[in-house]
Structure formats: C-alpha cells, structure tokens
C-alpha cells in the first residue's frame, strides 16, 4: 500500500501533466432558457432574399424540428446559427453569445459544446471513421489520453449504429447511410449540449431511420441535449420532435407542437400536415407510440 504523502505527490504530478495538456478556455454548461436566440435575421444571395425578419428561440432540452419547402433556407438558417454564413442583418445568440462574425476558427467556448451533422456526413476523407470521431476530442480536450480517446471513438461508432469494423475504414469505403452515421458519431463525440442535424434520416432505410430517431430521443432525454433538427421525414417529426418550426414566406411562421400547428389555417401548413404522407405517419405513430425506447423509461435531468 502506498503512503498518503507518496499518493499526494503522484496526484500532484499527474494533475500537472493534465493541466499542461488541457486548454484553459473550457466553460461550464449553459443554464439559460434559450440556447439559441435569433432576432430579425436577414439573409440574401444577391437579389434573392432568403430570410427577412426571422425570429426563433430554441428551448433548452427540446428537440426542435425545422420544416419548410425546398429552397426556403433551412440549411442556410442552420449555417447562419453555426457561424458559417454571415447574415446581412439580425442577431444570433448561441449559449448567450453572439456568433455573427465574432467566432474565430479556433474559438472553443461555443464550439466544444455543439455537434453538427451535415447532410452528406462531411467526414474528413483522409482519416478513418474512428480518427474522424477523435478529431473534436483531440481539438478541445487534448488532456484525454490516447487509450481513452480510442475507446470513446469505438463506442461512439457502435452507438451510432455502425458495425464495429467500420471504425478502421475510410469514408470512401462506406455507403451513404453509413457515412451519415459516422458523421453522427463525430457530432456526438463530445456529448454536446446542442446538436444540429441536417436531414439526418434522409437516405437511410426505414429501420435505420427509426433506430436513429430512438437514439436521438434517448440521448436528448438522458443527457438533456437540445436538438435543432432539419427534416423532411414526417415520421421523425411525429415521433421525436417536441416542437416544430415552420419556415415559409422568408420567416418562421409558427413554432409549436404538431396538434397546435394543425389548428392554424396557413395553406402550406395545412397541405404539409394534412397530406396523405402526413396522415400515414400520424397513424403509425398512434399505433406504435412515440419513438421512445420501449425498455427504458425516459430519464431526464433538464
């Protein structure tokens, strides 16, 4: 048995090592009400105005579905929030911090706390899937040792629904659906507070898509995630979204639960949610219950 003094010395030495590797700009979790606040957003490409006077608040711990016809600027909205698209006017706050033009590439206080899944997965093509997952870990938490990092990469890969052999494969060796899952594994690498998903279930088979829904719901409930989910998948909307934001006429025309949205008489909303596909999705949800996992009760800390 080691003596107390010796143990303390060892602890001090380790702590010093860890502190040397660690970044000093890590901040505590966000506890405000709205992780994302958007006011008066305007986006345009040349003459074409995409958003005008767009307001949207995302509540902490909710899954917000974003719907809208093609070309209504759903992806542009997401890119504006994560700082990839500089809007013409308006204010965007993520975790209470202004993100417009104020985020240098290496800034971490906001970026270490969100995960983004792009439409095509956007994996780094020269790294294996596991290495892709490790990139954010290495970037923001360099004090985590390689062993743990590899283990995290492995279980994240399996958790996102890929077979374990996929960890050592390059993105070009994967199918489109698998690339999307690998992208999700990377987006979830840090257990982020805020998750952006751009059409996560597009291109997945129905079994994969509903597994994806269950996974998203489960993570949201256990980790208290906030999810900003762009989708065309009506099953996903019915099964897991707490609220749905409808993008039309260059702004968010309504944000509410689906039953409440149905009461509005905007033509696009009526057509969207009362179309034959929507009815089918609604019926199947009523039959099978929401996409919550059957064997585990929804925990939740938020």
């Amino acid at each position, binding site marked *: 048995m080691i003596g107390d003094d010796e143990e303390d010395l060892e*602890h001090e030495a*380790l*702590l010093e*090592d*860890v*502190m040397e*590797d*660690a970044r*000093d700009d*890590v901040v505590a*979790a966000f506890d405000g009400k709205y992780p994302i606040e958007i006011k008066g957003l305007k986006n345009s490409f040349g003459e074409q105005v995409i958003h005008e006077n767009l307001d949207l608040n995302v509540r902490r711990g909710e899954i917000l579905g974003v719907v809208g016809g093609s070309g209504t600027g759903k992806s542009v909205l997401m890119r504006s929030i994560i700082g990839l698209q500089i809007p013409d006017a308006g204010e965007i706050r993520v975790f209470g911090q202004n993100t417009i033009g104020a985020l240098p590439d290496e800034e971490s206080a906001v970026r*270490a706390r969100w995960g983004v899944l792009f439409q095509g997965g956007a994996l780094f*093509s*020269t790294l*294996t899937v*596991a*290495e892709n997952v*490790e990139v954010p*870990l290495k970037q923001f*938490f360099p*004090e*985590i*040792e390689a*062993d*743990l990092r*590899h*283990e*995290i*990469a*492995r*279980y*994240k*890969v*399996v*958790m996102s629904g890929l077979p*374990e*052999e996929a*960890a*050592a*494969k*390059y*993105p*070009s060796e994967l199918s489109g659906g698998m690339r999307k899952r690998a992208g999700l594994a990377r987006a979830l690498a*840090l*257990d982020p507070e805020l998750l952006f998903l751009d059409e996560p279930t597009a291109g997945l088979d129905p079994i994969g898509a509903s597994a994806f829904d269950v996974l998203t719901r*489960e993570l949201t409930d*256990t*980790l208290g995630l906030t999810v900003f989910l762009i989708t065309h998948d009506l099953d996903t909307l019915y099964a897991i979204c707490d609220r749905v934001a409808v993008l039309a006429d260059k702004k968010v025309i309504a944000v509410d639960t689906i039953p409440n949205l149905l009461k509005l008489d905007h033509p696009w909303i009526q057509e969207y949610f009362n179309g034959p596909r929507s009815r089918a999705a609604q019926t199947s949800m009523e039959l099978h219950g929401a996409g919550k996992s059957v064997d*585990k*009760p929804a*925990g*939740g*800390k938020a």
Partner: protein
Amino acid sequence: MREWADFSVQEAGGHTTIVLEGPLLVSTIGLLDRKLRMFDEPVQHIDLSQAEEIDTIGAWTIWRFADEHKARIVGASQQAETLLQAVKDSASDAPVEPERLPTIPRVLEDTGQKVVDFGHGVLNFMSFLGAVIVAFGSVMRHPKRFRYRALIRQFDLVGISALGIIGLMSFLIGIVIAQQGAAQLRQFGAEIYTINLTGRLSMRELGVLMTAIMVAGRSGSAFAAQLGTMKLTEEIDAMRTIGVSPLEALVVPRILANVLMMPLLGFYSAVLAMIGGAFISDLTLGIPFWTFMSRIQEVVPIYDVWVGLIKAPVFGLIVALSGCYQGMQVKGNSEEVGLRTTQAVVQAIFMVIVLDAFFAVFFTEIGWG
C-alpha cells in the same frame, strides 16, 4: 481553473470501495481516467453516489474500470444507469486503424505494389490512348456530335489566357540568353553571334520547351483536377448514364485544344524571346533593335522554325493526355485529386524533356542541325 473529477479509496469489511467525486464529464475526466488506469489493486465496489453530472464519456470510463476490476457499481442515479447500459451495449474492441504490417514486410510489399502499379499504369495509359483514338474516330465519323463550344472554350483557357504569362516569361528568358551569351562570346570577340544564339535557341528549343512546361503547369494540372473532381462528384458517371461519352465530351476537346494551341503559343514564345534578346542587346551591347531583328532573318535557317513547329503539337498532346489520363484515374477521396494532379504535371514535364532529347538527335541526324 478547471474542475476535475477525482476519487477516494475506502476500505470497509474486507471490501475496497472507490468513491467517485465531482462531475464525470468529457471536460473533467482527463485526470480521473489517468489515475484509474494506474490503479492496479483489487476493487469490489464503485460508488457513484457522490458524483455529480455524468455523460457518456464519464459512464464509459467508469464502466471500463468496473469491467477491468470485476467491480460492482453502486449508488448510480437513474441517468447514470441509462448511460452505463448504453455504453455497455456499445462496447467494442475493434481496431481504430487499418492493419499495418511490420516495417520490413511492408517495405517489400510496397515495393512490389509499386512495380505492379507501374506495369498497370503503362497498360492503363495505353488503353486510355486507344480509347482516345477511338473517340477521335467516332467524332470524325459523326462531326455533328462534336462539341465545338467546348473546344472554343478550351482554346480560350489553354491559349488566349496563357498569352500574358507565356509572353512575359519568354521575353525575360530572351533577355537572359542574350545577356549571358554575350558575356561568354565577348571573350572571343564574337559578340555578334549573340544574335545567332538567341534566335536559333529560342526557335528550335526554348520557345517550345518553356511553353510546354508552362502549359503543363497551367492546363495539364487544371485538366487533372477538373476531371478528378468530376469523377468524385459522379458527374462523369452521370454523363455515361445519359449516353454521353466522357471521352468525346471532355477529353477530346481538351486534347485538341492543346494540340492546336501549342504551335501557336510556341511560335509566339520564340518571337517574344527574340524581342527580349533584341531589347537587351540594344541597351547593353550596342546592337540596335532593328539590326538585331533583321540579322535574325539571315542567321536563323527556316528549318529551325519547322523544328519548333513540329515539336509543339507533340508536346501539347503529351501534356493534355497525361492531364486527362490522371484526372480520369481519380477514385476515392479528395487527397487523390491532389496526388493525381501532381503526377499529371510531373509526368508531362518529364515526358516532354525526354522526347525533346530524342527530337534533338533526330533533327540533327536528318541534317537540320
């Protein structure tokens, strides 16, 4: 100052219990993980009741430690239970990198692979050449299918937009030849031969050679990168499914543009080099500009012009072929595009210089020395 998760050891009733303290999150786990990995005494219980928040990374660290020591986890909150179950279900020990052989076999394998690849490369290049010739044939049989607009566009990209840079380069090279040539010839009192040197060298060799190198850098690389990217984004596959032959639509116009533009660019380059020589002679050697130019007419035999004009289309063909060939070979990832582009340029310049040596011997042998 950052907060770190930590643990303490309690012994009671012959059981060792590890009590975890603090938040078990990705941002706080770094220290705890290192300490737990060094801990090698038997443990029966892991107590989570003192721990605060937990995420999957915290849960993984605990689960891995518990599994390693066959310890029981007690005092876990419902949230922790869910996460522990989730990471347990996702546990895996698959490799995270593709397998690598030990050094010596790997070197041997790589060497063998390179040799085989080289053989395949030669074969592939030959079959590409064959396919291009077939495509030319079918374009000639069906001239209506030929894409004149694409050809004109390539003329513009390969030829017109290169005029500025090639002109400037040739002008400067002309200055260098005349200047350096005069410095050497002066020792024999033969300064007047600077005109022969500049005129013949630029017409026969340098004009065309430097142009080929510039075109390889500008257009050969662009061909490889364009076609390579089109291959990655499946544009070329899409063309095939619509019944458009990518060779006819993409490769033939590029090769034609290079073959037709190279003689013009080469001649233009030679003329600019002579003007550069005349310019510097006027300034420093006391040979007036127009005297220089009219002497050129007398000392440069007409076959020198033919030598340059015969070589130019051949060089153009090589540059375009290797650019298009390498572009069409791209598969997999974006790194490949860069690699193939580099190869296209290196291969083109190398082949051009090798052929130039053959041409030099050949033309001297047939009496065009």
